[in-house]
């Protein structure tokens, strides 16, 4: 009869030849190859301090008749270490997904069990077919004050382990990166690049749950990024690009109010528009002198986040006071 036997790395394994007596004459093979008698204790096979290479099929034959008396498949592995669990909502407010993996392989089959508890309620996390080791949950309620507690237990023949994550609905919101990022030069504008992108397709409701974006760009020849934060719109024109230099551009997204920034999008490359080649030398000289008086590798003025913010704020105040003045003017007419 044949079965599977799981043993830990480093363990000492004793295999008995089925129901044969200790002093019976037997021959053991490993994957068809005879095993030397030095590993035998009577009819028992002794494997000391087993390692992964010793996994395989072990068979025991009666000495003279060569009848197969016992067969086992030895799988050498380890009990599971604490699994790594991650939960994220890239499709807020629909729900969230959790995905997991083991930090080190066990070399033997593992089974995973995930439980999600919300307050007193147990919720079902539906396993995804692809990728494996991932499941998703739909929110029943929105704006919940009660935390979610996700426990992942991993079990194999040699042991079990588990890990727990506790989080708020808002804490795990992280969109996927923006899609279809395109950067184009602007005709007749040697310092401009037009960048456009789309909301990640996994974000279900950008109308009610708008995203804001973070753009970063730099010429390939420099290491330092320039940044722009954009509170709406899916396009932006860079106006301080170096003439004739190839740029690398990336965009990230975040829910306007909650959660964290997405990973950076796929990088796109673009070079600003340049004049016809025969005019290049004179144009380049003019561009160099107008932009800086010293080295042409001095960083151009960055679009400062604070400037942008100050503009919005003072705009609001300006409207406020303008309205006040106009109303005051009308009031004076009426007095």
């Amino acid at each position, binding site marked *: 009869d044949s079965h599977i036997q799981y043993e830990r790395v480093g363990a000492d394994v004793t295999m008995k030849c089925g129901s044969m007596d200790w002093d019976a004459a037997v021959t053991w093979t490993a994957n068809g190859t005879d095993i030397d008698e030095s590993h035998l204790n009577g009819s028992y096979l002794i494997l000391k301090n087993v390692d992964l290479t010793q996994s395989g099929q072990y068979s025991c034959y009666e000495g003279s008749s060569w009848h197969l008396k016992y067969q086992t498949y030895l799988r050498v592995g380890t009990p599971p270490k604490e699994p790594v669990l991650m939960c994220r909502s890239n499709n807020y407010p629909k729900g969230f997904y959790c995905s997991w993996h083991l930090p080190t392989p066990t070399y033997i089959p593992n089974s995973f069990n995930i439980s999600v508890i919300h307050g007193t309620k147990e919720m079902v996390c539906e396993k995804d077919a692809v990728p494996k080791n991932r499941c998703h949950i739909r929110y*029943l309620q929105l704006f919940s004050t009660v935390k979610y507690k996700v426990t992942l237990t991993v079990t194999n023949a040699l042991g079990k382990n588990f890990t727990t994550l506790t989080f708020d609905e808002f804490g795990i919101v992280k969109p996927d990166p923006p899609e279809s990022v395109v950067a184009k030069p602007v005709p007749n504008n040697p310092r401009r690049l037009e960048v456009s992108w789309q909301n990640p397709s996994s974000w279900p409701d950008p109308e009610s749950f708008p995203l804001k974006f973070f753009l970063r760009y730099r010429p390939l020849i420099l290491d330092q990024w320039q940044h722009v934060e954009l509170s709406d719109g899916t396009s932006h024109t860079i106006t301080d690009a170096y003439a004739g230099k190839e740029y690398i551009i990336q965009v990230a997204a975040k829910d306007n*109010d909650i959660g964290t920034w997405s990973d950076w999008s796929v990088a796109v490359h673009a070079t600003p528009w340049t004049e016809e080649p025969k005019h290049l030398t004179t144009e380049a000289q003019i561009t160099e002198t107008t932009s800086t008086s010293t080295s042409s590798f001095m960083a151009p003025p960055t679009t400062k986040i604070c400037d942008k913010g100050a503009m919005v704020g003072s705009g609001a105040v300006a409207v406020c006071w303008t309205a006040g003045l106009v109303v005051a003017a*009308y009031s004076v007419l009426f007095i």
Partner: protein
Amino acid sequence: SPTGDSWGIFTFLCAALCNLPALPALNCSEELGAGQSIQQTYDLTRYLEHQLRTLAGTYLNYLGPPFNEPDFNPPRLARAERVPSATVDLDLWRGLTDNARLAANYRAYSRLLCYLRVLDSQVGTAELRHRLAHFCASLQGLVLSIGGVMSSLGYPLPAGPAGPPAPPGAPTAPNDFLKKMDDFWLLKELQTWLWRSAKDFNRLKKKVPPAVVTLRLEAREF
């Protein structure tokens, strides 16, 4: 984020100034039209949410463990239901009319403000009292701002308490620990409401036409 701080402060100052009763015959939120008021209210919720983070941190430390532990995840007791909850079924939330959406916010913050004022009157340290008072003032501004939006859209303000705190018959916490639990849930609900309001006002922003400066003259005593 740095952006949030600077524009949040600017626009909150505007809202505060516009709502000061000292300004004669000027109710900025009405004059500027609903669109601008919604933006203002949205900005206020973001500012308050930022303020609350600091306040909650200080207050929970004052309450001491386990309340200030990040993993603290107590079950919701029945008594905590008095604090208005932001939790709502997703489809229901989507289907709210503008009036219902605004009214829910107005009612919630009015009651939360009451409870916070009670907290303020009982709290031990001077620093906390100062922070709470500041926060209550900002929250009052939010309630007024929401009221302003409702008025400019022609909705009646929900009836009910902006006045005295819990009715005399209401049960106070029987012991110190339960009192602290009440405080914990109050802050949690407040935080959740501020997150929810940002989404509520985002939705309203999209549905109400953009800012139109309307001049309305009303007979007022100078």
